[in-house]
């Protein structure tokens, strides 16, 4: 196997693992309007990489550590209701990004591929990353499956869920952490600037073909996998950046599904 093919294979394996999580969590981002939260975690990833490199850690673990810390901070401050949550996210999002940039400029002895971090780089995906991706997919995925019904009750109405005995606060924190971890592990592949769209576009694409939320989450994962395959294929064939190519493939899926849903509703007259 030639070098480029090996890299593509690794990226493909990583991408499938990521799509397992981006499907359901992209749905939660759409359902609970958490897109800005996803962006915040993505922006903070730069700080995670810088810290990881400074302390000679694995960069994926650095990104996850910063993502989890910021999630806990946002969750705590949000409960105090002193600031609106989008204001809070704006502060964290750009505060963390600025801090990351300044720390990079101050440390003369670390070199970071900012371009790769912003736009994604399949060459950056190593065996370590693949192990982390699948470990997280197993961990977050099984927690999602176990608490799926309660998560749906929380999504539909917090008060009803709480009265029916759902531990709403805990599940809210879990939802945020799961999104944070998903964003963190997917960043190497599609980059800081594009990651949130990898969660949102597949979920939005399959909305009209799903009869219930569970189905929507599964379809979104499948659409995500299709986008990863299509994007990597295009990237290899036309030598385009991998992250952007994956998002473009997702966009293509969205456009096709949107047109199909319009045609379908015209035929059925709804």
């Amino acid at each position: 196997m030639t070098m480029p093919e090996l890299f593509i294979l690794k990226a493909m394996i990583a991408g499938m693992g990521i799509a397992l999580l981006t499907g359901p969590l992209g749905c939660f981002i759409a359902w609970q309007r958490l897109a800005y939260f996803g962006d915040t975690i993505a922006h903070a990833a730069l700080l995670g990489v810088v810290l990881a490199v400074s302390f000679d850690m694995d960069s994926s673990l650095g990104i996850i550590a910063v993502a989890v810390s910021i999630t806990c901070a946002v969750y705590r401050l949000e409960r105090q209701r002193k600031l609106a949550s989008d204001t809070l996210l704006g502060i964290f999002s750009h505060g963390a990004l600025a801090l990351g940039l300044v720390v990079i400029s101050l440390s003369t002895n670390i070199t970071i591929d900012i371009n790769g971090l912003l736009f994604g780089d399949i060459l950056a995906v190593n065996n370590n990353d693949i192990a982390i991706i699948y470990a997280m997919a197993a961990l977050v995925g099984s927690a999602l499956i176990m608490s799926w019904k309660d998560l749906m009750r929380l999504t539909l109405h917090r008060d009803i869920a709480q009265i029916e005995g759902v531990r709403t606060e805990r599940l809210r924190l879990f939802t945020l952490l799961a999104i944070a971890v998903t964003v963190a592990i997917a960043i190497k592949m599609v980059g800081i600037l594009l990651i949130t769209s990898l969660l949102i576009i597949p979920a939005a694409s399959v909305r009209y073909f799903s009869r219930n939320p569970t189905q929507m989450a599964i379809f979104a994962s499948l659409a995500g996998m299709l986008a990863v395959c299509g994007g990597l294929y295009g990237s290899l064939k036309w030598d385009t950046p991998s992250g952007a190519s994956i998002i473009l493939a997702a966009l293509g899926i969205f456009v096709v599904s949107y047109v199909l849903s319009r045609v379908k509703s015209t035929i059925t007259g709804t």
Partner: protein
Amino acid sequence: MLNPEPFIIAEGLEKSYGRSNVLSNVGVKILPRKIVTIIGPNGSGKTTLLKVLLGLEPADKGTVQRRAGLRVGYVPQKLVIDPILPVTVEWFLNLSAKPGSMSLMQVADETDIAHLFHMRMQTLSGGEMQRVLIARAMLCNPELLVLDEPAQGVDVTGQAMLYDLITRISKSHEASVLMVSHDLHLVMSATDHVICLNHHICCSGHPQSVRGDPAFAALFGQHVADSLAVYSHHHDHDHNHHHDHA
């Protein structure tokens, strides 16, 4: 059962948001098999009181004691579902249906929603949505059914039917009802106990006695109090009529 244990006892409740005092020195007792209605103008703290009684929000001061293991069914003021969430009525109800509790079909029959099962939640009318929410609340076989402005967004004929349904279903399931309303006319007849709330409790008691209370007239205006007297008269008449035949 001469002295049934109350479902909820709350005393000396105080709650404020920032500087505005929403509840001051409010006490409430909910007994089994009673219909309690909280009435009051908009912004008088009705919803907040409900949430404090249910433990959804903490009070700043005072105590709320709920009987241990009390089963509560809750119907919120409104349920807004984002269009991106594909949820049918059946799927929504199945989130609460538990094996061993009341069957879905029985509840759907009582609330007349079986024909809506395959519709999307977002396409329901105001009245249909309320009936679905009541059905969902009934699925956990509640001892206390709590409703926050159940008739909001429902047309006038639908409102009367809705209150009728609430009364009927609570009787047949031997559940207490605690509801918030400002539809004085429709609510008064079926209620055992009225609480008039304007941040503090202005007056409370049986609808008959509350209606004659000067505090009630002060809160809602004399003409409202008078018109309620007329309504109540009609109702009493109707009521006696039934008894004659029984």
